[in-house]
């Protein structure tokens, strides 16, 4: 391995086309994921692929990288057709991919993950020393330093992403596909990440940047291609594009942004006083947290993931028991911390991970719709299920909350993320909860679906619910929360009214670079960001 794998001298005139997709079509069952898409990537350019979730961006890139085989069409890299359905061939041709869901083995080291597949499987030994040296060299060159011998499970999300990029660079990638790379990053990390991308382009790479966030696309790309429902709808130079124009192309209709009315907060619904929750394995708990949420208000919790949000959510869901402190619900002290007791006390829960905590993927939509209330008399009599009432209830949820896709008998895992979230939302709101825990409700959803979720939360607020919104997306928080607190290493700041705080300030609090004004703890910020 010599270090000149990304040969700058080969970076020829700007007009050279390094990658050409011709008429790619891919059909999954009845869904046309890609409909006759043709695209070109020029040398040294950043092409943004913009589109809502389910528009076919990832499918297209998976075809390009050989994970899927296209029904028709061809992929040409540096003037040569590459065989279909072979990631190996794609890598050989110089394509690297940073997957949205990282393809890393948590139990193995960084070096293991990077070196996998780079040496002949017949070789009797592995030259780890030179691999390590090469990895460190690449890290230095592109500002992607990671310790080679650390296990992936010990890395932060941002660091894992660096490993993903390093994997591609190690394989001498000259075209890098980045699938929703910023979805998991904090604002500060995103900034650093963009710097990295600029270094990569300078180093002679051509990039395809997949995103559904317009601001990012406008900030980083040279050219934008917009996908909608599997078809390529527009392709323009970024310099000539405007946000509204792109949004329209992406969604195909006007999005109604949720309207947020000023409301007078009501009585206190949920109160924490010096609550401490012990840390689980490898994740922080809560340290003497105090918080008060009233009816008719949304309190936002900002923070980098893994700073105690899970403990807070578990506490409200009845999955964690506090070690000390007082938890009050409707003015009464909570003594039993079980999910059942929380449900009985009108707590609605929108969990962070829809797939593992929100629904049971292999059970039907109807069964999932009553999974929190199946014991109620209308759904069960003397231990027998009442299917008619269940189906009627599910139909009601489906129509009221606009859940589209599969029928009520099909397993719920087949629903798209947005529809799954609508189902969960419907299930929660049908119980008329007085306290709603919304943990990352917009994660992984497209613009339209996020707007819908926000709309529903706001109308629940108007009807008198108290809502705790945990999110890493600061814009989301500033859009709909009334007050915002920042969580960092298990400690919660005071709450700030939304008018009095900016994204930049929140960002500093989130990484611990600015001390909370109420609590005073040293050395918190040194290794953050």
């Amino acid at each position: 391995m010599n270090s000149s794998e990304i040969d700058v001298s080969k970076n020829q005139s700007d007009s050279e086309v390094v990658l050409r997709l011709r008429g790619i079509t891919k059909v999954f069952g009845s869904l046309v994921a890609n409909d006759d898409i043709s695209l070109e990537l020029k040398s040294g350019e950043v092409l943004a692929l913009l589109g809502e979730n389910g528009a076919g961006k990832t499918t297209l890139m998976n075809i390009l990288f050989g994970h899927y085989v296209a029904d028709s069409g061809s992929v040409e890299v540096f003037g040569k057709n590459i065989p279909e359905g072979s990631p190996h061939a794609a890598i050989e041709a110089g394509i690297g991919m940073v997957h949205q869901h990282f393809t890393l083995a948590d139990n193995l080291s960084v070096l293991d993950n990077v070196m996998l597949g780079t040496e002949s499987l017949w070789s009797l030994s592995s030259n780890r020393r030179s691999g390590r040296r090469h990895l460190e060299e690449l890290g230095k060159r592109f500002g992607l330093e990671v310790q080679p011998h650390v296990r992936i499970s010990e890395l932060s999300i941002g660091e894992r992403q660096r490993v993903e990029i390093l994997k591609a660079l190690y394989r001498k990638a000259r075209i890098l596909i980045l699938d929703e790379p910023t979805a998991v990053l904090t604002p500060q990390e995103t900034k650093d990440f963009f710097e990295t991308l600029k270094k990569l382009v300078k180093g002679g790479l051509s990039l395809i940047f997949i995103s559904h966030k317009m601001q990012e696309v406008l900030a980083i790309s040279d050219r934008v291609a917009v996908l909608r429902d599997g078809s390529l709808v527009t392709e323009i130079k970024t310099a000539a594009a405007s946000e509204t124009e792109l949004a329209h192309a992406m969604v195909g209709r006007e999005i109604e942004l949720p309207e947020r009315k000023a409301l007078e907060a009501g009585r206190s619904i949920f109160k924490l006083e010096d609550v401490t929750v012990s840390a689980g394995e490898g994740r922080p708990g809560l340290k003497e947290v105090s918080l008060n949420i009233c009816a008719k208000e949304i309190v936002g919790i900002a923070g980098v993931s893994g700073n105690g949000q899970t403990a807070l959510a578990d506490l409200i869901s009845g999955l964690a028991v506090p070690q000390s402190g007082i938890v009050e619900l409707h003015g009464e002290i909570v003594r039993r911390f079980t999910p059942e007791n929380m449900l009985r006390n009108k707590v609605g829960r929108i969990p962070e991970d829809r797939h593992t905590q929100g629904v049971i993927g292999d059970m039907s939509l109807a069964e999932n719709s009553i999974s929190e209330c199946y014991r109620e008399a209308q759904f069960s009599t003397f231990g027998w299920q009442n299917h008619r009432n269940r189906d009627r209830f599910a139909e009601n949820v489906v129509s009221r909350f606009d859940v589209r896709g599969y029928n009520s008998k099909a397993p719920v895992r087949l629903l798209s993320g947005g529809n799954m979230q609508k189902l969960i939302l419907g299930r929660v709101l049908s119980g008329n909860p007085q306290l709603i825990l919304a943990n990352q409700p917009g994660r992984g959803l497209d613009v339209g679906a996020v707007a819908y979720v926000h709309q529903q939360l706001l109308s629940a607020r108007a009807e008198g619910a108290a809502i705790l919104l945990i999110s890493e997306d600061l814009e989301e928080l500033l859009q709909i929360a009334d007050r915002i607190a920042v969580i960092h290493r298990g400690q919660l700041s005071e709450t700030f009214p939304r008018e009095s705080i900016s994204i930049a300030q929140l960002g500093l609090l989130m990484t611990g670079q600015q001390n909370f004004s109420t609590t005073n703890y040293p050395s918190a910020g040194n290794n953050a960001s």
Partner: protein
Amino acid sequence: MEWLEIFLNTSFWVAAVRIATPLIFGTLGEVICEKAGVLNLGIEGIMTIGAMVGWMTVYQGAGLWTGVLFAAVCGGIFGLLHAMLTVPLGLSQHVTGIGITLLATSLSSYVYRLILPEVNSPPRIQAFEPLDIPGLSAVPIIGEALFKQTPLTYFAFISVIVVAYVLYRTPVGLAVQMVGENPAAAEAQGLNVTIIRTCAVVCGSAFMAVGGAFLTMSAFNAFFFNMINGRGWICIALVVFASWRPGKALLGALLFAAFDAYQMRLQQLIGSEIPYQIFLMMPYVLSILALIVMSRRVGYPQALMVPYRKGER
């Protein structure tokens, strides 16, 4: 203190290592399969096949090592069958494995009867002789246990080292681990998950079959029905006990075998005051206890028992 004196007895240690040998092979084979993400419950049947084929090859006049080779090949074939069903087709690994065990066990007996229809008491073969390593075998108490065993036992110890080296020090070992941890990651690095998993299962199954062959070619010198007698299942437990590490697998197999050898001697010592079944039970009870203590912090291969289908949404 007679029950303590057993530990000073050379024959106890020799027996422990001998009993451990098939377990070492079996556990090693299962570790290879499970590291690649495939649970192989066919182990019990594959060991039976190995025992029968190895013995039969020698009985028909071939050399001992030819017998071992044939046993390994036949084990590999059943491994291939298991892999075909569970890897490209993605069938349930539990059900397939149990099916393989039933099939292979019955088939062994069937073939045995087919070839030797008239035989009543199981005929014996000229089996492996203990190989004395001069000097070292004279070490008191444990010398003979480690250095006066049959060649297959030495082979088992060497296999542990080789498998550990391959798994942790070579590219192919890394690939095997990766398909067991995160097959999507392996594929994204250009590896063929199906081929790697299949090869790992075939290779692991060959080891299991050699473990079975040890019983007929180094221990009992004859093949009879039901002779594996749950050793395969013990190996499955030992894999968990060993946290999927070859070195610990060796340790676990030796520990279990030592319990077994000890209980046999204890039986003779105490006589009929206590029903002998209590002693028979002892190693199993102890292995359950050991599992409880040891497997608190086990690291399962994360994709164990998860079929991988390329391009599936």
